[in-house]
């Protein structure tokens, strides 16, 4: 079965709420049921997307833009792939599964995420990983302000040097063999993250204004 694919019909200029477009929520729904789901006042899925495919365990969003918010919200399982940019709150309160964004994402990416894997190949806005409780968020691009604000637990894997707040503590550079296992979990995914192999990182721990058990791992050259 091919992935259930949502292709944007026209350029959307108003906020679209994609909270209900997750593998868990769409499981056992018919295409007609899915087309009838409301995304905003006076906007249904059928108004915004053309649907193809049938496998609700793998969702793909094609030709999407920054107006699509809450992609992967509270998702518990399955895979969601965003071909393009995403709006705010991508992966917010994620409970599991894999969410890959091949473009840029807005603010609050991975907000209050609890479990799962969120991989963003582009840039993100402000408050990335804010209040994150656990899980892994990978970022190949640049981040906005207040990275990891209020982050409690979990791992933020970044390629570019982060600009965390004073409530993040630099623990220095070291080798972490565990990253080999993390990278193996990327290997079968259609993402640039599958090419990562560095195990040398600069480790930051925070956000010590709160629980302070989270980490930012900035990849270094081996």
């Amino acid at each position, binding site marked *: 079965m091919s992935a259930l694919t949502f292709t944007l019909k026209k350029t959307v200029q108003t906020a679209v709420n994609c909270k209900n477009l997750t593998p868990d929520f769409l499981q056992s729904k018919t295409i007609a049921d899915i087309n009838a789901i409301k995304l905003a006042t006076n906007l249904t899925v059928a108004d915004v997307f053309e649907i193809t495919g049938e496998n609700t365990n793998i969702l793909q969003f094609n030709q999407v833009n920054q107006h699509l918010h809450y992609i992967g919200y509270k998702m518990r399982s399955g895979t969601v792939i965003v071909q393009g940019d995403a709006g705010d709150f991508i992966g917010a309160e994620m409970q599991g599964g894999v969410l890959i964004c091949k473009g840029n994402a807005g603010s609050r990416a991975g907000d209050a995420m609890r479990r799962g894997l969120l991989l963003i190949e582009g840039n993100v806005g402000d408050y990335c990983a804010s209040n994150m409780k656990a899980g892994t968020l990978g970022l190949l691009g640049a981040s906005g302000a207040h990275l990891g604000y209020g982050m409690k637990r979990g791992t933020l894997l970044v390629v570019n040097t982060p600009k965390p707040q004073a409530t993040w503590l630099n623990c220095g550079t070291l080798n*972490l*063999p565990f990253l*080999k296992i993390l990278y193996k*979990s990327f290997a*079968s995914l259609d993402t640039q993250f599958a090419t990562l192999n560095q195990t040398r990182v600069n480790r930051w721990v925070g956000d010590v204004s709160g629980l302070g058990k989270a980490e930012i791992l900035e990849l270094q050259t081996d």
Partner: protein
Amino acid sequence: MILNGVTIDDTFAEAFNMRGTRIIITAQNLKWAYHAANAMTGFATSVIGCGVEAGIERELTANETPDDRPGVSILMFAMGSKVLMQQLENRMGQCILTCPTAAAFSGITSEDMISLGKHLRYFGDGNQVSKLLPDANGHNKRYWRIPVMDGEFLTEETTGMVRAIGGGNFLVLGQSQAQVLAACEAAIEAMKKIPNVIMPFPGGVVRSGSKVGSKYPKLFASTNDAFCPTLKGVVKSELDMDIESVMEIVIDGLTFQDIALSMKVGIEAACSLGKNSGIKRISAGNYGGKLGPHLFKLHSILNGDLDGITGNEPAGAKA
């Protein structure tokens, strides 16, 4: 039965049900993986005094391990699940956690999962980090990253516990101590190539086979006098006058077939040295078939029956 001039007794080894697990130990290089594994499998020759029987199953290349580092796989067996869990935790804490660069992973899956690093994580004093990651088959596994002075100790949370068999064995009887030891060494080299088994005694060989009971009431086992060459004229001996030394190879394994196969290749390797090497007989240790549910009949195994169809007879089978 005669194999290469060596007499194979028409007898059987008697083995018992055990609980077993496999752990994969990795490290920066094989040298340190062996340091960890040797410590973990040290003092683990017999459940009688050590709680568990453990040994190194084989070396693993970096391509075969979860963290792409070289390592070894360890098999560990106990008479019950409680002892196995306790011993595993103790040995993980004292031998793997302490060993520089070492990491530990589950080497077997089962419906019964037991703690590997689940409780050890508290050594991190609140700074331990958990990661739930999918393996190659998409099954989520939980890992613990525990801060230690050399960096980070990585361990999987649990490993599988399976039903296993312990106590497969055979005896090598020969003209001299040196000749018997040489034959046992040849057997062990061949048996090390068989997966799913370990030979837990020093170098894989044991010289102090035991019988049930003792003249001393507090002892429940004592020397196997029927096979002691110095007592040939004193007790009801199993040895001819030209036998000067007997050594035993004990095998624990995950299945009957694994043990039977290792016994077959081991006996064949010992006998391959030929009659002129001083090896006279191959025998096996048993309790008359009354105690252990698994009977490994030497003739059946050497004839290629590794499934125990004829060898695994009910208790009370004739020795």
